[in-house]
């Protein structure tokens, strides 16, 4: 298992953002669903080693990120796209992705090729020399994905990766996710259930800091056959599980 989480908790003052989550994930695309404020982003930030957990056990890629050495090793093999992508407007696409390749300690000799590959994979080859300040929101999101995958991560954490992408790009992105999931564990946090249905082999649903469902998309769909509301089968499963959790 690349991700092993046991009783993971995170508090921000009095606010309990993640409340005793248990989760395991191996290679493949893992969808993390949930309404706003469910704790998805906080869970992803802990998995990205950006913030430490308040309590509980977290093992990533077989290592304990609580210790500096293993944490650094994890980070070399980690890709992370935060929900709010900050960027340096004066950098070009190539420079921004190269910057993160270097921060991830990609061997220097491999950096140019890795950068070129990552940029091609998000279909930004034509904009490689463009300054980030000139790009649209969707293009910036793709730049964010490129920096996340530039080190060919074994664990890829994507927080709302399809926000701002047009339908065609979302279709392409799902294909990319499926491809990445063949070799790595890809955790995708989203509230767009169709992304999960199209790309994920497994899905967890969070609400109020807890995981209220974990299974395949088909199993989530099955939960909504009787009580759920929504336009699509997966949406009905999503709402049914949430309603059951809150009742």
């Amino acid at each position: 298992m690349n991700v092993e989480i046991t009783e993971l908790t995170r508090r921000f003052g009095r606010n309990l953002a993640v409340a005793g989550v248990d989760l395991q994930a191996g290679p493949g695309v893992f969808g993390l669903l949930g309404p706003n404020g469910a704790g998805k982003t906080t869970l992803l930030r802990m998995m990205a080693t950006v913030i430490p957990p308040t309590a509980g056990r977290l093992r990533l890629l077989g290592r304990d990120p609580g210790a500096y050495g293993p944490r650094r090793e994890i980070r070399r093999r980690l890709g992370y796209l935060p929900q709010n992508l900050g960027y340096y407007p004066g950098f070009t696409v190539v420079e921004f992705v190269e910057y993160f390749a270097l921060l991830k300690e990609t061997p220097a000799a491999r950096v140019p090729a890795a950068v070129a590959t990552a940029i091609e994979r998000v279909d930004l080859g034509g904009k490689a020399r463009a300054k980030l300040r000139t790009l649209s929101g969707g293009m910036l999101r793709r730049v964010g994905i490129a920096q996340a995958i530039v080190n060919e991560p074994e664990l890829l954490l994507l927080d709302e990766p399809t926000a701002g992408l047009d339908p065609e790009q979302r279709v392409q992105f799902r294909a990319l996710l499926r491809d990445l999931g063949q070799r790595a564990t890809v955790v995708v946090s989203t509230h767009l259930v169709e992304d999960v249905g199209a790309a994920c082999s497994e899905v967890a649903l969070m609400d109020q800091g807890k995981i209220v469902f974990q299974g395949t998309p088909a199993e989530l769909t099955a939960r909504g056959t009787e009580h759920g509301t929504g336009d699509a089968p997966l949406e009905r499963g999503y709402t049914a599980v949430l309603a059951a959790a809150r009742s």
Partner: protein
Amino acid sequence: MTAATPVAPGPLPVAPRAGVAVPGLARLLRLELRHNAMLWLLPVAGALFWFNGYREIMALPPMWNLRAMTLQNRLLLDLTIPVTAAAAWMGSREGRRNVADLVAGTARPRWARQLATWAATTAWAEVACLACIAAVYVMTARQASWGGPLWWPAVVSAAGIPALTAIGFAAGAWFPGRFVTPLVTIVAFFGLGFGTQAASGDHSYWQISPLTAGAFDIGAAPGVATFYHYLPDLSIAQVMFTTGITFGILGVLGVSSALNGPRLRRLAAVIAAAGLAAAGTAVALAGTGRLDPHGMIVIPALHDAASNQPVRYTPACSRTAIPVCVHPAFAVFLPAMTAAVGPELTEIAGLPGAPARISQVAEVYQQEPQNGIVSLAGVPGGSTFILPDQVPGEPGATSAQFAGDLEDTLGLQLIRDVILGENASAVAARPSQAQLAVIAASVRPGSVWLGPSAADANAPELSGRPLLALSSPAARAAHRFAALPPDAKHAWLAQHLAALRAGRIPPAQLP
């Protein structure tokens, strides 16, 4: 976006190059160099220095000591605003641009990342600093009549740059708001400026300020570091201080982030401790300074006695009746000097007691309490002299004032020594009215005090200047004698000097 296993495409700007393996940190530094705020502020830095420092420095006489020491006094202050601002802006970049989460999940330690950004900022700031130094030194090399560049003032300025960027960068990194940049810039500017004003005496700890070039009340004076070597004692302490501050702040920056890991934080702690210890030691050393007789600060623990030796030089001499010889650094002033005292030289040349030539000697300084410094001058009279404190080109000094000062000092000294003979330097000497008349007639008006009443004639000397009663017979004789050409004066003195010295000639007998 493509799911297919990709091959590296060709035409991207960063294409792999065979045989070139640039280390990761070097690549990072290259990126930071390309996208650094200091790069954009280089023209601002250059303009500020040109407006505030360069014009004033280049207006000074073309003497290496004056210009180099004034450069140290100005350059760092002129660059403080753009350099500190750029560093603070770069230091706060991650916080301002909301990339903290993005970079926090990367493997390279935060300190290494910060050091790369700081190093790039510092590199561009050093480019600005060195360009300013080069501009002054290249122009001075073309104009100076003697000597070579004084490197220590330049080294102190260059060593101050990393300290400024470290202060700005750390402030930006710790408080990444938009207001930290103007705030830290203002604090650094006034802090640096205040540091130079707070110095008091040769034992002052404040002279550790990298803007302080030499003793507080002397500073960049023409005679300092001309006859004797420039003493690097204070400069060494200043470099030690700024380097220590740089390492101290960068070390604390490394210690302050838990993201750096225990080994790196320990290393940062050692660097911080060493840096702060060096800075503290430098301040303590500055406090042991004492004024060297030649106008520079000696720090005993750093002093090399070999540098006490006078500089060897071949004097530049005038082709006047009595040659006037000056240190070659002052050769540019020789025409003005001979023009100022030429009549006196013609008048006394060859007379008994007149020197065969007169030579410039170094001024001798002595520290008084607080910032007071007295010049002991040490002029034994006769064949040696010192130049006035201010030479043309220095702020507030004009050629006319320089000539007047020379007549008041050197001209008067020459005439007095010849007219009064061996008694010239005796305190008890009471020159006769005829002697006073000849002296007054030989120097410019003002060199001799003209008293309002005959009663003043009872006090023939005041403040080292002869006193001549207005409307007295001696004053009328002085007017007559002054109207003679120098050759006629010389001829009369050649015949009557012995009698004049002996006091046997009354004023009425003066031609």
